[in-house]
């Protein structure tokens, strides 16, 4: 290792430096940068993040042509829709930071009983009922990240709390908590989530609760393991000798040392969480009809597998576009996750 570079300190795994400045010059980052798959994954994920952030601007054309409640709730009058794409107006920023919930409702181009093929106004076509596919997919990206970040965030908070208690207290508490974690992890996540959604009732919030109820378990296991090993280190004894009590030791000395890797692992799970949410929506257990959501967009395709007689593939766009958006998203997260785990892994 190049010890002359300032800011690089030897950490437990010997690869990742402690200071942010050293990170850009570290071996780990260099290896990440030279891996074409890692770069592809990063680019794809950044692309989706940008789509999610700039959803109102990307759907400006749709918002302008099909006047809907979203434009009204942004406080825009007739002929003022253009403010959405003008960065010097407050509406531009409001639509990005806190768009009204009505923006997630897909505007209906028509009330047609069959899907409408792509055309001038409907860039990707529309599903049965006239739901604009392009609008649904762009705003669906936003709701996907919304679900992913909230679920993973809650999972980390709750999992870290449970793991910290189990790891620090030890004894029978640790045993009981970890056996419960084993039970949660041994059940298929989708099955548990379906049971919880069925009992709570069908809505996007309940889908998030159901996934979070499964998602915290692995984090608590990881954090507990970290705490068990850090607990034995000398600096903890030092802190104790200086008079620090249990909670302070955990919060000030143990957590900061083990939270970093956990956060990296957890943020990579956003892709997987989005996929479970989409699967639940696909089965009809998620958001109400017309809510911009990937799972629902592709579940429309189930009714339009076969075209009218003579044109068997007439409705290809209903299954192709939502499917493509989901597959590329999963591909991006998988590539990125793989590369990051490679970098974090000491052995390789």
């Amino acid at each position, binding site marked *: 290792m190049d010890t002359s570079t300032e800011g690089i300190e030897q950490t437990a795994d010997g690869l990742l430096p402690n200071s942010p400045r050293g990170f850009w010059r570290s071996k780990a980052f260099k290896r990440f940068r030279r891996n074409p798959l890692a770069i592809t994954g990063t680019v794809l994920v950044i692309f989706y993040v940008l789509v999610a952030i700039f959803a109102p601007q990307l759907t400006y054309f749709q918002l302008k042509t099909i006047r809907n409640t979203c434009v009204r709730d942004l406080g825009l009058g007739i002929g003022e829709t253009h403010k959405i794409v003008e960065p010097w107006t407050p509406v531009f920023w409001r639509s990005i930071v806190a768009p009204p919930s009505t923006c997630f409702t897909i505007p209906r181009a028509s009330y047609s009983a069959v899907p409408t093929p792509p055309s001038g106004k409907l860039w990707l076509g529309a599903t049965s009922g006239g739901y604009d596919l392009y609008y649904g997919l762009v705003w669906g990206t936003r709701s996907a990240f919304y679900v992913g970040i909230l679920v993973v965030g809650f999972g980390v908070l709750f999992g870290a709390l449970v793991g910290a208690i189990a790891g620090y207290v030890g004894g029978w508490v640790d045993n009981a908590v970890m056996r419960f974690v084993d039970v949660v992890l041994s*059940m298929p996540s989708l099955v548990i989530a379906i*049971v919880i959604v069925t009992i709570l009732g069908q809505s996007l919030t309940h889908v998030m609760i159901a996934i979070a109820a499964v998602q915290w378990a692995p984090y608590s296991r990881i954090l507990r393991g970290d705490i068990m090993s850090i607990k034995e280190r000398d600096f903890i004894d030092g802190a104790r000798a200086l008079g620090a009590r249990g909670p302070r030791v955990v919060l000030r000395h143990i957590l900061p040392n083990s939270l970093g890797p956990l956060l990296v692992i957890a943020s990579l799970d956003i892709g997987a969480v989005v996929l479970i949410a989409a699967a639940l929506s*696909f089965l*009809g257990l998620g958001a109400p009809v017309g809510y911009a959501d990937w799972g629902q967009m592709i579940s429309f395709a189930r009714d339009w597998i076969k075209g009218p007689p003579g044109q068997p593939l007439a409705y290809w766009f209903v299954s192709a576009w*939502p*499917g493509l958006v989901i597959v590329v998203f999963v591909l991006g997260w998988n590539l990125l996750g793989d590369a990051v785990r490679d970098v974090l892994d000491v052995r390789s």
Partner: protein
Amino acid sequence: MIVLLMQLLSPAERAATFITSPAQLQNINVIIEKYGLDKPWYSQYWRWIDAAFHGNLGYSTVARTTVVNAIATRFPRTMTLALAALFPIVGVGIWLGTAAALNRDKVVDQFTRVLAIVGWSLPTFVLGIWLLVIFYGGLNWFQPGILTTGDSIRLSNLTANGAFHDYTGFLILDSLFNGQFGIFLDFVWHLVLPVITLSAVTSAQIMRVMRSSLLDALGQDYVRTARSKGLSERAVNTKHARRNALIPVLTVSGFTIILLFNGVVITETIFSYPGMGQWFAAAATQLDYASVLGGAVFTAMVVVLANLVVDVLYALVDPRIRYD
């Protein structure tokens, strides 16, 4: 735990888990009274466990029969699908993974890598829909369901005439025992697309693990020792390297079996395959609480059994592990 969550429901909804025939729906208040559904949670929990152990999981409005009956008719179909999916998972996963590791950085390896990344990124519900659009919508080669209309009518006629006996409950075996090769072939044909859908992600994962763990094993000292004592390349690869490489693969299969259950729910729903998963998903959307609970409890049991099988396989692959 699940039953505790049920406390959020009204007594009438909870009564569904105790009902065993549609006739009982008439006097639901009697049932609420009889099973003490307005009593505190611990006595209800005890009652539910008691009933479950006596084989009473309630009445399924989706399947129009008792939950236990629904599981009995549907589980064999799901089991057939899952076992059929093991062939591509083991075949493609282990075989291609081995081929890739032995021919590192050659054409086979590159091809396998691309295949792994593509397969790994195809969510079950997208792949299933796409396969249906292409092979049913476009080409009309494969239909959803388990039999074509003609064959299913023929099957129900044969059953009604007493010419078709239910020996095992597994249609794939019963059709052979009854000498109905047409129905057998039709059933196998209908299995093709669901099996591809169900096994894609898992095969890709097993393939990746197999490749990396075999590469790991090939670099070990014992492989060099085996080579230096003059063993043939084949013996070194299969007996020394691959057997050791299979251990991490088995660990991963423990997780992938659980993932397979997620896949079954979606695959069966897409292909209208009348198994456990389709029933479970339909029950969830139609608020058939008894079926959802019964299905979940049964799935938990199957998961435990599947993990037991993986543990036994561990002992077979790794002689260091002994269960006394």
